[in-house]
């Protein structure tokens, strides 16, 4: 069984003093230290990054990592929009499963805050279709279209979206690495200005810098030696059309549903077995859709469920969602996000999550989305 034996996530936020590869280095050496491994014990690296080429003219990351680490092992840069980290993890898993290596390091990183917001928005929009780009659609715009459709179809209001941000900001307060450590209220969310109607500033994840790394292995001696270890029960990727206009249903992300069904089948558990989930809340509507598409709640009921705040830490529930603060409050350095999500589940399952630790979780799930649902990755971990 492939097992996670080390993890490190840097602080997320506006980290002007650090370059992309400063952040990569911090997370890689942090994960090596956590696992007790030396760099020479890593046989391959998968590096998730989306915008290095688009914003910074910074490509050929594999060779840059090789120089930094003084290694000559296979290193692969993986791009799949905001799912770059999750897909890098999946490829690392498959590399091990296909017996190419026993021990692999997966790292995701992004440097976004060196650039003006409109340049970053345009860069992110490179992961939309040509037709959507020409119409001026941004990612907030695409998710706003999904939000408007969902709210109208199931008779919800913007207030039902706001609960997601309130919950995730509360969790961010408990996470020292989070981009935002500030409690907000439903009134704060509703009073914030629109980015793309009906989504507002406080419905949206921020532009962040950060990196996260994990070490996975099937080497029994390393697993036995590891201070903390968690098994990867499933990692599944699914895709869908890049354009919203080519989708049959606009009240779901089909790729999430397919990846989740495959992952639960592979892990031989059901959504009811999950105690901790990190879901892709790039915008508040995305968490509502994710909770339904992952099978936690029935289609059309997420608005009602969110109102109860049952998935918030400290509310007495045995199922907590986005304990890290999610993308909304922990931040969203896009290439790092998918790795950080799996890392958060690892921290919870190994009882290292500090103030946000939940009581004896057994199974956890991470859900990472690329674009407006063109790619989805679902990973299930267990003890």
């Amino acid at each position, binding site marked *: 069984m492939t097992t996670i034996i080390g993890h490190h996530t840097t602080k997320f936020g506006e980290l002007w003093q650090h370059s992309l590869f400063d952040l990569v280095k911090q997370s890689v050496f942090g994960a090596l230290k956590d696992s007790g491994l030396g760099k020479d014990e890593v046989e391959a690296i998968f590096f998730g990054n989306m915008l290095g080429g*688009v914003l910074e003219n910074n490509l050929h990351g594999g060779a840059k990592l090789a120089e930094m680490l003084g290694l000559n092992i296979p290193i692969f840069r993986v791009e799949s929009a905001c799912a770059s980290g999750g897909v890098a993890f999946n490829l690392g898993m498959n590399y091990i499963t296909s017996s190419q290596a026993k021990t692999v390091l997966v790292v995701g990183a992004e440097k976004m805050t060196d650039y*003006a*917001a*409109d*340049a970053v*928005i*345009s860069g992110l*929009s*490179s992961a939309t279709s*040509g*037709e*959507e*780009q*020409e*119409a*001026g*659609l*941004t990612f*907030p*715009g695409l998710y*706003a*279209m*999904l939000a*408007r*459709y969902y709210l*109208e179809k199931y008779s919800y209001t913007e207030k039902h979206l706001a609960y997601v941000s309130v919950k995730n900001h509360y969790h961010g307060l408990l996470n020292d690495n989070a981009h935002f450590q500030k409690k907000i209220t439903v009134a704060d969310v509703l009073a914030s*200005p*629109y*980015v*793309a*109607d*009906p*989504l507002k500033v406080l419905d949206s994840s921020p532009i962040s810098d950060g990196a996260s790394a994990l070490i996975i292995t099937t080497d029994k001696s390393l697993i036995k030696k590891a201070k903390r270890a968690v098994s990867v029960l499933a990692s599944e990727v699914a895709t869908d059309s890049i*354009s*919203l*206009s*080519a989708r049959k249903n*606009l009240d779901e992300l089909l790729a999430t549903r397919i990846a989740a069904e495959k992952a639960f089948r592979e892990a031989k558990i059901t959504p009811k077995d999950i105690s901790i989930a990190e879901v892709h809340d790039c915008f508040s509507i995305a968490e509502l859709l994710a909770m339904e598409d992952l099978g936690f709640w029935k289609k059309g009921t997420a608005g009602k469920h969110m109102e109860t705040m049952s998935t918030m830490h400290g509310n007495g529930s045995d199922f907590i969602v986005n304990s890290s603060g999610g993308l909304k409050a922990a931040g969203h350095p896009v290439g790092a996000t998918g790795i950080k999500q799996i890392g958060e589940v690892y921290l919870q399952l190994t009882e290292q999550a500090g103030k946000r630790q939940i009581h004896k979780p057994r199974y956890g799930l991470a859900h990472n989305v690329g674009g407006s649902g063109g790619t989805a990755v679902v990973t299930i971990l267990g003890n």
Partner: protein
Amino acid sequence: MKISPIKIWRRQKELKHLLGKKGKIITGTTIYVPGSHHSDKAPFPVVLVELENKHRLVGQLTDYRSGDLTTGTKVIAVLRKTRSSSKKSVIVYGISFRPL
């Protein structure tokens, strides 16, 4: 990043087949924070339209009045400038939708 004039020319060859097509709005939004290619247009509405032949596409809503950005509004595909342009760049035209 600048868009290549050749890419614009290639894409615009397809536009004539869409002009005059009618449909209705399925969903939409108003973009308040645009990317750099649309920075002088914000705020501007964008709609997802289902045409009478059931084909769906997105485009900006143009020549509209308050209340037109509503699900079910009937629209027609027209040719409009879609991106910000300068004196040195090619003017990009694309499909927008005008309420009927």
